[in-house]
């Protein structure tokens, strides 16, 4: 996994609540069997005026110029400002893959849906929860200032605005450790293979029906 330590980038404000994973990456793009290449279809139905198809060249498609990411001032944005319950809906990891592929490294919102939140960490994407007043303040500042950039320092757990304001955020110690070091979860878990085997031996005694049941 990609490391995340310190990041500075242009912030883009997506001002709507309950942005769901169907909106982040519509279902027709989930047919890919790869992890990469979802960026051009991020927010497809908001971003383009026509219906997108998998494997289509998006460069000639009609753009919805009102959509925030199509505005030149937010070109190259890597920090997404969002509203409550961001990422609700399905478990598709294609949502963080699409955000990552587009170039986002950080999403800041007052709340996230659980599965999406968890999926972000598996992909080197940092979801940050700030309170509503703080998020409101950032929305106002980004809309008022062209080229507005935010810095995120994961080690210190702060978001830093251009004027030097610092917003502290919480992050689970384990997830922080994995992001800072770009660690692979599976490798970490396999270090505990003996614990897993010991659990299985014990569990087999207690609930034998949970073992050796599914076969042709």
């Amino acid at each position: 996994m990609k490391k995340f330590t310190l990041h500075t980038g242009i912030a883009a404000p997506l001002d709507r609540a309950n942005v769901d994973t169907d909106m982040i990456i519509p279902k027709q793009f989930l047919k890919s069997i790869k992890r990469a290449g979802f960026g051009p279809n991020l927010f497809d139905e908001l971003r383009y005026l026509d219906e997108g198809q998998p494997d289509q060249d998006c460069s000639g498609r009609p753009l919805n110029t009102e959509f925030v990411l199509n505005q030149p001032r937010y070109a190259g944005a890597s920090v997404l400002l969002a509203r409550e319950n961001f990422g609700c809906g399905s478990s598709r990891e294609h949502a963080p893959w699409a955000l990552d592929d587009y170039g986002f490294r950080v999403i800041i919102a007052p709340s996230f849906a659980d599965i999406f939140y968890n999926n972000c960490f598996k992909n080197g994407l940092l979801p940050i929860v700030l309170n509503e007043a703080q998020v409101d303040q950032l929305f106002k500042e980004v809309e008022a200032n062209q080229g507005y950039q935010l810095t995120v320092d994961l080690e210190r757990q702060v978001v830093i605005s251009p004027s030097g304001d610092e917003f502290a955020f919480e992050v689970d110690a384990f997830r922080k450790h994995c992001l800072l070091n770009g660690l692979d979860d599976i490798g970490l878990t396999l270090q505990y293979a003996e614990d897993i085997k010991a659990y299985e031996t014990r569990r087999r005694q207690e609930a034998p029906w949970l073992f050796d049941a599914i076969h042709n």
Partner: protein
Amino acid sequence: MAGKTLYDKLWEAHLVRQNEDGSSLIYIDRQILHEVTSPQAFEGLRLAGRKPWRIDANLATPDHNVPTTARSGGVDEIVDPVSRIQVKTLDSNCDDFGIVEFKMNDTRQGIVHVVGPEQGMTLPGSTVVCGDSHTSTHGAFGALAHGIGTSEVEHVLATQCLIAKKMKNMLVRVDGELGAGVTAKDVVLHIIGVIGTAGGTGCAIEFGGSAIRSLSVEGRMTICNMAIEAGARVGLVAVDEKTIEYFRGRAFAPQGELFEQAAAAWKSLVSDADAKFDRVVEIRAEDIKPQVTWGTSPEMVVAVDGSVPNPEKESDAVKADGIRRALKYMGLSADQKITDIQLDRVFIGSCTNSRIEDLRAAAEVVKGRKVAATLKQALVVPGSGLVKAQAEAEGLDKIFIEAGMEWREPGCSMCLAMNPDKLGPGEHCASTSNRNFEGRQGFGGRTHLVSPAMAAAAAVVGHFVDVRELMAQ
């Protein structure tokens, strides 16, 4: 010391280890795989040179992409080439790793969340995961079940564990008696309307109370299925005699003496009387009427005798903006009556409502009636090949076909339109599925979530109607 909740018990029984940093490793008894969220997980295993930890904990079946029209030509005749590759990739991955798969034309194939319990793969007291958020469905049997992302699918394949953090305990208690014509779907839509789509975020929701106990296990599956629409990854219902009897004789469930041993253990899968919940919501069953969603989030729901809300009456600016946006997308006006919404298509199916009881409820409504001439299509898609066979044995297929509905092969179908079943731009659909998000059922499509009985009633009249009134005629 306070007693334990059902969730506490399931968590403790699966705890492999607790790390100093607060994260835990929990053991996963069962994983269900489908074609959309598994290919990258298998690819990851191969790239790292890893093998599945336990083959016999996995079961696979293609559901999201499969066509629901005649498919005797097999996978090679799936018209959409991208879908075809995805289904073939699942087949070859399962073949390569030796994972049991019910392939597209196996009669046991179907929607993962219908197939798992039907086969006794899901069991009370087990942990069940799948790369699909509606895995919460399996909690109806006192199993700890939730959706995971593809990285976690790979993690479970490789380690049989998940890195997890304990959730909060929430109890939604529905006491009283449900009125005639009010179903599990109406109960869960009503609950989401009360607590909101983020109401259960961070929680495992246990659904309890006399109204939940009186539901069949299939009704409880409908409720737990939509826990995720209330923000909760996990929905749970305590085990009772109905739960235990459901599993007797199922293919992967224990048999004979082992079943009795398991059944004795399953009886403890209830929350203790003095268990402490972090949050409790109480709902009176008598307050619940047939529900219809009007907007683009499942919490945008009202009773069938209600009206579409007016954003001018909403004091919260973000909410008012959400209502305006939804009205525009849905092509509805403020204060419009729900029964005035004209429909283009009706969809009866999905992991929420495609089991035999759902089909019986819909058939009861359309029996001897005809689909409204104004409708373009009314689809009935059973949840599995076995549900389809059961429905045909009961003659339900004939009732649907005589009414002018289409009787299809099993799959996810129009719930998320990854196969050819989809809405056209601007079309309104009465759907028994679980999400009414923008574009969910097709680009520009307008979804209204309802129960199977309400969808069937809407099919007959061409607009929403209180099924209780239709049946009284």
